[in-house]
């Protein structure tokens, strides 16, 4: 078990460095001004949320094949962090949209996909907490974890086609970044990555401890 305390301190430091890059290093964007700095937080949040969902997918497949408790716990931990981060990404994206295009919500394919995934994985967490029997709950959640991720590309493409017919209110949001801006993005991506790892491993360790307590009960059965 990697030491969570060290990771926590590391992620705090990384986030602090990220903030310095955002406020002191990156130049002020000309048309949008200070609001553009939301992007440095928004993008890593969305990115790591997607990584979380991919982890849920892989862990779910592993659980279906091996039926081990570890994969199930990992899937649950990743889903929790993913919902948290995609939720924050949606809020920051919405504030960005309000400032940039004067609307709280637009049918941007990335934003829409994030929203739909937030819905799907929030439902996933509701299912996890629905008080089903242990092994069955793990199995049901693993099936949903697989199905949900299969849906991601379909949602993304349908959102994109949908928008292309509607004359959209926005232009592409990432284009034309200066090198300093790119560096700031990368630094924050890394900082949020450390935070992500800390949260996932922390939740995973907690779930593992629960699992060990359970296994102690079964102890002595071996060889029977």
């Amino acid at each position, binding site marked *: 078990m990697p030491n969570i305390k060290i990771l926590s301190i590391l992620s705090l430091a990384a986030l602090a460095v990220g903030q310095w890059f955002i406020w002191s290093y990156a130049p002020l964007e000309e048309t949008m001004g200070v609001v553009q700095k939301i992007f440095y937080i928004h993008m890593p949040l969305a990115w790591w949320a997607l990584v979380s969902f991919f982890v849920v997918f892989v862990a779910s497949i592993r659980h*279906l094949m091996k039926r081990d408790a570890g994969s199930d716990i990992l899937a649950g931990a990743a889903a929790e962090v993913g919902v948290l981060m995609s939720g924050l990404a949606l809020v920051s994206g919405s504030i960005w949209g309000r400032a940039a295009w004067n609307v709280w919500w637009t049918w941007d394919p990335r934003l829409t996909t994030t929203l*739909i995934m937030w*819905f*799907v994985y929030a*439902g*996933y967490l*509701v*299912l996890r907490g*629905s008080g*089903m*029997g242990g*092994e*069955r709950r793990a*199995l*049901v959640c*693993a*099936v*949903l974890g*697989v*199905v*949900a991720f*299969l*849906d991601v590309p*379909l*949602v993304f*493409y*349908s*959102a994109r*086609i*949908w928008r*292309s*017919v509607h004359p959209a209110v926005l232009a592409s949001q990432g284009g034309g970044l200066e090198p300093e801006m790119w560096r700031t993005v990368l630094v924050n991506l890394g900082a949020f990555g450390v935070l992500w790892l800390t949260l996932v491993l922390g939740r995973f360790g907690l779930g593992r401890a629960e699992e060990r307590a359970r296994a102690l009960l079964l102890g002595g059965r071996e060889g029977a």
Partner: protein
Amino acid sequence: MLRRAAAIAGKDLRLSVGGGQGLVQAMLLGLLLIFLFSLSRPTGELVSGQAAAAIFWLASAFGLVLVFNDLFSLEEVGGCRLGLLSSPVPEHSVWLGKGLAGFLLLVLSQMVFLPAAAVFLGQDIRGSVPTLVLALIGVDWGLAALGALLGALAQGQAARESLFSVILFPLLLPVLLGGIRIFAGVFSGEPAPDEALWAAIIVAFDAVFSAAGAFLFPFLYTGEE
């Protein structure tokens, strides 16, 4: 496997059409939704084809939830799920049978929704009828494939309906958008220029979730509570 799936579907259709709760409830709820949405139309104005198509598919999605809830609760009444699982029937046959029955019941309820959309929302089929039929079959296929998989999800749960719909609806979005866009074109008589792309999305959705359903259903449908 196919013969047993057909036997299960036949039994389910017999139970659902002959005095079953699910189909009637699905039809009534869908009709109610279409009527209620017609209230959003200001007097003397027309509902756009797209709005009507969205309402139609929303009614279908709610109908889907009720239909599959009913199909799976049929097996719970007399404990028949254990009977099926303790018999040599492969779980895939159950999934296929439920999906087939659900598909037919959904089409049956849409035979009511379509005229209702014409009456309450003032729509007419101005586009091509074959497009409409093909889109209907394609979208319903995807709905049934996912409904038959996830209908088994909340077996033995108290809050099955609400949990089922909360999880199912966001997953259905791609195929529902496809249905809405193509139906909008058929209602208004001006086919969407990207109809082929939508058809591709619907076919991809059907393929992905038919495969996923066939593969994953045995994990969901078990004798455990």
